[in-house]
């Protein structure tokens, strides 16, 4: 099992650790609800160094990324990032990712830890022009500092103007005395905040400085468990749960990052889906009957007929409701429609709702 450069710190903090995507990761420190609320109301720090980072640079970099991803990379200004996905040839998704434009011809792709090798091989397979690629995952530490108080905690540590940084923009600058740190106004929580990329050799020093600076803001270390409840309240897809090698971007509600202004893998099929419509679609739902939906529970029509499967589900700490997502036939996808979730041997009533489930105050 691999470890992140913060492993010792997590253990000292008494985190409950578990294997995730081949890494020994902190799942929770003080309790999921407390950590979840800390991110929504103050500021929390996630170690997400397990994520993968690829540098793609030089002439041909833009063409390569355009070809393997669905979003339009050509619209990115330098110091701007976008959410995107890589479709496969069979109608599914290889991975979802962030694309950062670092320079005129330089890009960074941030991919899921579980897919690092698969993504690398996939992109290389399409790299017919031999564009320069480097996998910097093992030497890159990544902290997600998330929550409404993230700016006040991080601003004293850097010369980058964080207050003025727009969502999905980034800058490189000095952070905790370390040069060339990349800070982006991104995250997976819907709580605001930043993601900070730096060399693993500075990991402990940077962690300690962030926590010193955050002491008066109620900063806490927060684990992957509340990362999941936070993202699910926002209706963000999780690769491996809500999207995978078999789900199409259109069915997954990712039409907004699928741009037909350019050519890309499996474009014709995906464009046809967008034009002609799909037969199933991901929806968000909340439970009406008491019960909690979980990954792989069946969705039924109430008459015992299975119509789909739950892809993600949880009790939502900020909503005090049980919520979930899953794929259903298009006729069941309208807001307000009643569906049923098969929980143990009961059919529990639920209702399709609009996502995000959680709306920032």
């Amino acid at each position, binding site marked *: 099992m691999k470890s992140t450069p913060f492993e010792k710190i997590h253990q000292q903090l008494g985190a409950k650790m578990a294997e995730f995507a081949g890494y020994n990761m902190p799942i*929770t420190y003080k*309790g999921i*609800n407390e950590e979840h609320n800390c991110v929504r109301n103050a500021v929390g720090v996630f170690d997400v160094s397990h994520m993968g980072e690829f540098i793609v640079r030089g002439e041909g970099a833009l063409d390569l990324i355009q070809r393997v991803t669905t979003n339009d990379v050509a619209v990115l200004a330098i110091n701007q990032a976008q959410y995107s996905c890589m479709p496969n040839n069979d109608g599914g998704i290889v991975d979802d990712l962030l694309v950062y434009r670092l320079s005129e011809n330089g890009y960074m792709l941030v991919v899921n830890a579980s897919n690092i090798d698969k993504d690398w091989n996939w992109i290389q397979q399409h790299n017919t022009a031999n564009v320069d690629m480097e996998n910097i995952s093992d030497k890159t530490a990544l902290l997600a500092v998330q929550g409404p108080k993230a700016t006040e905690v991080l601003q004293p540590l850097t010369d980058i103007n964080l207050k003025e940084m727009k969502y999905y923009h980034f800058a490189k600058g000095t952070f905790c005395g370390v040069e060339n740190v990349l800070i982006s106004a991104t995250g997976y929580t819907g709580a605001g905040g930043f993601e900070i990329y730096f060399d693993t050799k500075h990991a402990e020093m940077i962690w300690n400085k962030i926590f010193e600076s955050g002491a008066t803001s109620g900063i806490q270390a927060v684990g992957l*468990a509340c990362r*999941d409840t936070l993202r699910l309240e926002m209706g963000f897809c999780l690769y491996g749960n809500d999207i995978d090698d078999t789900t199409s971007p259109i069915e997954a509600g990712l039409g907004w990052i699928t741009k037909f202004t350019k050519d890309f893998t499996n474009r014709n099929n995906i464009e046809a889906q967008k034009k002609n419509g799909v037969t199933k679609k991901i929806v968000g739902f909340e439970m009406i009957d008491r*019960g909690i939906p979980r990954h792989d529970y069946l969705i039924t029509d109430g008459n015992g007929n299975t119509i789909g499967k739950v892809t993600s589900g*949880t*009790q939502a700490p900020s909503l005090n409701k049980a919520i979930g997502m899953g794929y259903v036939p298009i006729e069941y996808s309208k807001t307000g429609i009643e569906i049923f979730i098969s929980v143990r041997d009961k059919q529990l009533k639920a209702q399709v709702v609009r996502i995000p489930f959680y709306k920032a105050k």
Partner: protein
Amino acid sequence: MNFPDNLRYTKDHEWVKIEGSTAFVGITDFAQRELGDIVFVDIPSVGKTLNHNEVFGTVEAVKTVSDLFLPLSGKIESMNNGLDAAPEAVNKDPYGEGWMVKMTFSNAAEVENLMTSEQYKALIGE
């Protein structure tokens, strides 16, 4: 962690409090810590007679679901209705406000198979 001497325990991390032919059942301090924030205790077995080790309900934490196994054969007489509105009582007070069911047990000999607090502590490595 706290494991009162006046209770008996199971390998499935339930505690049992014997009062005559009645037993109160809940989950241990160790179990609630392992599960984390408990958000729902589902007990569909009230009024039913079950054998020991049969599932009598489910406890749901934010991220996990665990079955509850009946420590003794007998009839589930009632459940702790307070848990409906406040399932977090299982975390805060597992042996008090967090009790789960009250039952009448049918085979007193089974009580002798339950663990003492010393045995339970040894099981979980305390």
